[in-house]
């Protein structure tokens, strides 16, 4: 009481006085020994082993070196089984910062690297390097540092790290980290722990007695590394010989030897710091944070050996003691020596061993397997007789005596901790600072109920750590789950956006549907212009024949031909106009301008020739005036019709963007039929007249008439089809309504028409032959051409039939699905392909990519569906799945099928789109393009033949006309070929 009052009275002093008092205290040379709370005084039992000097340990046949003898990451082996190793050779290197190297304790051969029982209370195995010793104990070349002060601290730290030194007191924390604190950390006190407070253990005691000089050298190295203000050695007062030895060795240097009273656990790091400095290391703090570094005396010795002698940590002094050992004492044991071998070495009498403990009796653990090796932290092996360390008595209920709280060196409430640990109330246990328990065992030692308190605390600590780990893992799992959800949502949103974009695009396309309809108009116009040019060509041919025969109506025929040409040109112009007007053809309009100019030139020259011919005929006073007039009338009607069409097209084209101006294709067709039949009638009339006049070209004219009739018939058939599918056209179709008719039927029809035309041509040729007409060869060539066309169509039909069963398959052959096979009939007359526009290559490439992607998607979906189906069937067959599972599988299959169907539909749509584009670009579908190309080619060949024939006989004018025709045909053929190639390239993608 009076003391406290004095303290209080002294408190309100000036800051200078306080500083002076602090200085005085720190200057006290003897040093005050403080006290810590609690502590116990168990029987020391040190006399068993401290009487004899340190003896050399055995050299066992096998050494077992665990890769984690220390705290931190296990070392990484540098050797493989079968390798020869020398004493002191590094056999495992440290991994990461907190780790230590391992060296071969003697020479020998690595026999295995694998799991062996190790020094762990769990009794678990861990990976060890096993060395079969060779008995030679041959050192690897090694050299120490003569003067460590010449080395930099970093170099010394490196030596310590690579010597594999870890705390020798019991924890095994890698020393290289503890001596490498960095410049910012000011070390006030370096404390050398030589307390050795646990009963039985005398390893440090003997080490200090015998090797004090070396220990002090080690301490000097530590001083050099840490540069502390003071260095203290704490030794318990029950080791007087060690104290005097160390004091002798320290004479003349700045190391203070502090003798502390014997009390367990003075050797605990925090307790020793409190004893020597009075500083308390707060909960969760490290000693370094209060400016103190603690090193075990054995560690100091190991550092001296490593630095000055170049010997890594390969052995340690271990106390072998207990009543079960006949020769208790301290042995310098090679690391990795199995406890079994050590016992055999020290227990010559073969005494009975009741319990084998590694470490001291307070903090050590019972070994379940004597094969466990001695490691860097093994300071003691107690082989106790059964009487010496009996089985602990059974646990009794806590009587709340409070003894445990009295002895706790960490100032905890062990009883509260016990209750909370027992009830798994970890949160409350942590509130009572469970984690600050040093597991010294003092509480359990004094417990009258024999409660294994430390085990409760260890259990609770393990649970707390486990929960923290689980929480960490759960947080990680939640993060990953949320990230995944976010990703999936994002993907879905993207997909939805893409879908919306597609829908939008489709809607736009639908809105521009009338443009497609106007392209149908363009196609109709083209047909008309084709017809006109056909008629023109036939007329030219007739005129030539007449000229060859020397008939008198040559001029007239020529004029007719010219006028027909004019009509044809006009039709062409109309087609072009229509195309220019339609938005689809807007892009390639530039290209058509050049062509247009060329054709205009051609048309005007043809017109001039026609005027010239007409004048010549008038001058000759030819007699077929009536016929000419009739022809003129027909031509005029045709021209008018074309003009009307042109007007319509022009009117339609600007309004094309409005969805309501869709032109009825039926009406269009009707008009065409009317034109065709009128043309046919005119031709028949001309033929009759020629017959009456006895003209030689009557047969030819008749053939012409037949051809026209065929055209008319075809148009009629088309009209029928169109009428049949008219309700369908009411719907907003992007492709012509007739696309919906079966392509095979359409092809059949075409084949029938073609063969009919061929037969008619053969018939005409025969007739001409009988009459001895000159143009038999020409007619035959025509027939051949028609046959070729018919054959091609037949081949197509075959293809289509073959492909027909797989029509719903994702990749229909082009023959199987020409969507508009019937909307442009295969005309049986040669056709001059119209000016074609270029297909945008970029678009084609894009489409190619999309087609590929879609195909892969479909294939994958289809495969998955097949697999799912197979799995389902398998499950059903084997009855391995329950009804619920089966239905779930069925659901999955349905989903997959829907997916596959969707992919296929998309693919089909794309193919259709490609075809529609071909149509939009060329005004024809693929089949027409093919036919046109074939026809153009044969027409070109014919014309060339004709030119060769007439080169010698015909007049210059004729030749000129022919060569110009030939040129036109050539260019047309080229265009047709090009168009076909482009179209095929696009179409080919689908194949």
């Amino acid at each position, binding site marked *: 009481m009076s003391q406290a009052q004095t303290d209080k009275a002294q408190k309100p002093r000036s800051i200078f006085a306080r500083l002076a008092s602090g200085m005085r205290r720190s200057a006290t040379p003897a040093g005050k020994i403080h006290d810590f709370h609690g502590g116990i005084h168990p029987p020391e039992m040190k006399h068993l082993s401290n009487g004899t000097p340190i003896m050399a340990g055995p050299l066992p046949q096998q050494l077992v070196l665990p890769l*984690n003898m220390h705290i931190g990451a296990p070392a990484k082996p540098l050797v493989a089984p079968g390798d020869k190793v020398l004493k002191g050779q590094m056999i495992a290197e440290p991994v990461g910062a907190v780790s230590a190297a391992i060296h071969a304790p003697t020479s020998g051969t690595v026999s295995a690297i694998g*799991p062996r*029982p190790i020094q*762990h*209370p*769990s*009794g*678990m*195995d*861990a990976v060890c390097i096993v060395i079969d010793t060779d008995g030679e104990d041959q050192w690897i070349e090694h050299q120490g540092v003569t003067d460590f002060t010449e080395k930099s601290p970093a170099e010394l730290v490196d030596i310590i790290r690579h010597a594999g030194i870890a705390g020798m007191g019991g924890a095994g924390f890698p020393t290289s980290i503890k001596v490498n604190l960095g410049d910012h950390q000011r070390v006030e006190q370096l404390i050398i722990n030589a307390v050795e407070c646990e009963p039985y253990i005398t390893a440090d005691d003997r080490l200090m007695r015998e090797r004090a000089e070396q220990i002090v050298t080690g301490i000097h190295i530590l001083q050099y590394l840490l540069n502390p203000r003071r260095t203290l050695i704490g030794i318990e007062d029950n080791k007087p010989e060690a104290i005097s030895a160390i004091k002798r060795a320290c004479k003349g240097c700045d190391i203070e030897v502090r003798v502390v009273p014997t009390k367990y656990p003075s050797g605990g790091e925090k307790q020793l710091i409190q004893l020597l400095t009075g500083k308390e290391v707060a909960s969760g703090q490290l000693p370094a944070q209060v400016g103190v570094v603690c090193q075990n005396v054995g560690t100091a010795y190991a550092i001296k050996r490593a630095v000055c002698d170049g010997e890594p940590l390969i052995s340690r002094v271990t106390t072998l003691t207990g009543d079960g050992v006949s020769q208790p004492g301290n042995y310098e044991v090679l690391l990795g020596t199995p406890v079994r071998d050590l016992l055999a070495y020290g227990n010559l009498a073969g005494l009975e061993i009741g319990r084998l403990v590694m470490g001291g009796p307070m903090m050590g653990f*019972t070994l*379940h*397997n004597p094969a466990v090796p001695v490691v860097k932290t093994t300071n003691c092996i107690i082989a106790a007789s059964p009487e010496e360390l009996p*089985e*602990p*008595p*059974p*646990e*009794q*209920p806590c009587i709340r005596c409070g003894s445990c709280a009295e002895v706790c060196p960490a100032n905890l409430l062990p009883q509260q901790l016990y209750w909370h*640990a*027992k009830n798994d109330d970890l949160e409350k246990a942590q509130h009572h600072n469970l984690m600050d328990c040093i597991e010294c065992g003092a509480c359990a030692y004094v417990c009258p109920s024999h*409660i*294994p308190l430390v*085990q*409760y605390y*260890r*259990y609770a*600590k*393990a*649970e707390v*750590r*486990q929960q923290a*780990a*689980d929480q960490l*893992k*759960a*947080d*990680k*799992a*939640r993060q*990953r*789950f*949320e*990230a*995944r*959800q976010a990703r999936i949502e994002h993907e879905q949103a993207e997909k939805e956006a893409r879908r919306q974009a597609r829908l939008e695009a489709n809607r736009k396309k639908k809105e521009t549907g009338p443009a497609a309809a106007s392209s149908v108009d363009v196609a109709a116009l083209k047909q008309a212009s084709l017809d006109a040019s056909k008629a023109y060509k036939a007329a030219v041919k007739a005129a030539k024949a007449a000229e060859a025969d020397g008939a008198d109506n040559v001029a007239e025929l020529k004029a007719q031909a010219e006028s027909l040409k004019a009509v044809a040109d006009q039709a062409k112009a109309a087609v072009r106009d229509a195309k220019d007007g339609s938005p689809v053809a807007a892009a390639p309009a530039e290209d058509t301008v050049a062509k247009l100019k060329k054709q205009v030139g051609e048309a005007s020259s043809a017109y001039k020739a026609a005027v010239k011919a007409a004048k010549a005929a008038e001058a000759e006073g030819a007699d077929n005036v009536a016929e000419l007039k009739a022809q003129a009338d027909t031509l005029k009607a045709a021209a008018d019709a074309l003009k009307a069409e042109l007007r319509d097209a022009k009117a339609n084209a600007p309004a094309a963007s409005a969805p309501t101006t869709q032109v009825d294709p039926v009406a269009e067709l009707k008009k065409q039929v009317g034109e065709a039949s009128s043309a046919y009638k005119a031709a028949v009339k001309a033929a009759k007249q020629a017959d009456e006049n006895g003209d030689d070209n009557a047969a030819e004219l008749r053939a012409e008439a037949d051809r026209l009739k065929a055209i008319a018939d075809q148009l009629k058939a088309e009209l029928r089809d169109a009428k049949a599918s008219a309700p369908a056209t009411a719907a907003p179709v992007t492709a012509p309504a007739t696309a919906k008719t079966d392509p095979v039927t359409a092809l059949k029809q075409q084949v029938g028409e073609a063969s009919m035309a061929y037969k008619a041509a053969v018939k005409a040729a025969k007739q001409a032959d009988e009459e001895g007409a000159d143009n038999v060869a020409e007619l035959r060539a025509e027939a051949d051409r028609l046959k070729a066309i018919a054959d091609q169509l037949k081949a197509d039909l075959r293809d289509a039939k073959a492909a027909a069963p797989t029509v719903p398959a994702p990749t229909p052959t082009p023959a199987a699905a020409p969507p508009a096979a019937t909307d442009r009939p295969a005309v049986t007359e040669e056709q001059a392909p119209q000016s074609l526009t270029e297909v945008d290559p970029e678009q084609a490439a894009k489409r190619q990519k999309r087609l590929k992607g879609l195909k892969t998607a479909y294939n994958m979906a289809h495969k998955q569906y097949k*697999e799912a189906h197979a*799995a389902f069937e398998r499950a059903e067959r084997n009855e391995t799945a329950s009804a619920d599972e089966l239905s779930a599988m069925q659901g999955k299959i349905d989903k997959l099928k829907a997916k596959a169907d969707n992919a296929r539909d998309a693919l089909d749509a794309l193919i259709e789109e490609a075809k529609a584009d071909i149509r939009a670009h060329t005004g024809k579908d693929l089949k027409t393009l093919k036919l046109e190309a074939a026809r153009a080619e044969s027409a070109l060949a014919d014309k060339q033949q004709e030119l060769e024939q007439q080169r010698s006989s015909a007049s210059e004018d004729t030749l000129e006309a022919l060569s110009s025709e030939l040129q036109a045909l050539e260019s047309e053929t080229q265009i047709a070929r090009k168009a076909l190639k482009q179209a095929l390239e696009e179409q080919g993608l689908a194949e």
Partner: protein
Amino acid sequence: MSGVLIAVAALLALAAVFGAVLGFASEKFKVEGDPIVDQIDSLLPQTQCGQCGHPGCRPYAEAIAEGEEHNRCPPGGQDTVVALSELLGREELTLDDEGAEDANVAKVAYIREDECIGCTKCIQACPVDAIVGAAKLMHTVIVDECTGCDLCVEPCPVDCIDMLEVKPTLQTWGWQRPAGIGERPDSRIEVVNL
């Protein structure tokens, strides 16, 4: 009489003022979302296993907040049920695990890699993206990320996924709880070898 009127008027004025303040506060300091959901979610074990019938722990937390029973989490065990009961002030229910496997045994998925055909189905099923692999290529489980929810086992077409018990390592091993009153402490230390 006027005194009574004054008192009534004063009270009415006070009521109006406080009403306005409260109304303003409830708008100004409005809590977005449901804070109880976060609390429930933090108690759930985050295995994302879906055994409760919800696609993950958070959706289940939301369902509990809306009144669903809180005993449908087998991985969390009875402890979670108790904790949820305390949090929500609801009746303590027994765990509804419907023959679910012992939740206390930590498990982890393991793909027998020789048998894996690379179908990616398990990858799609994994709620925490703990399976790596690509189509037609072998898959494998990232053991550290696996929560042991076993959602990947069912979709595997070749049944090459096993749920293996997580064996303790030296790092994860912990002391057992002493058997209790009347027992000798050392008799319970089991030797487990890897």
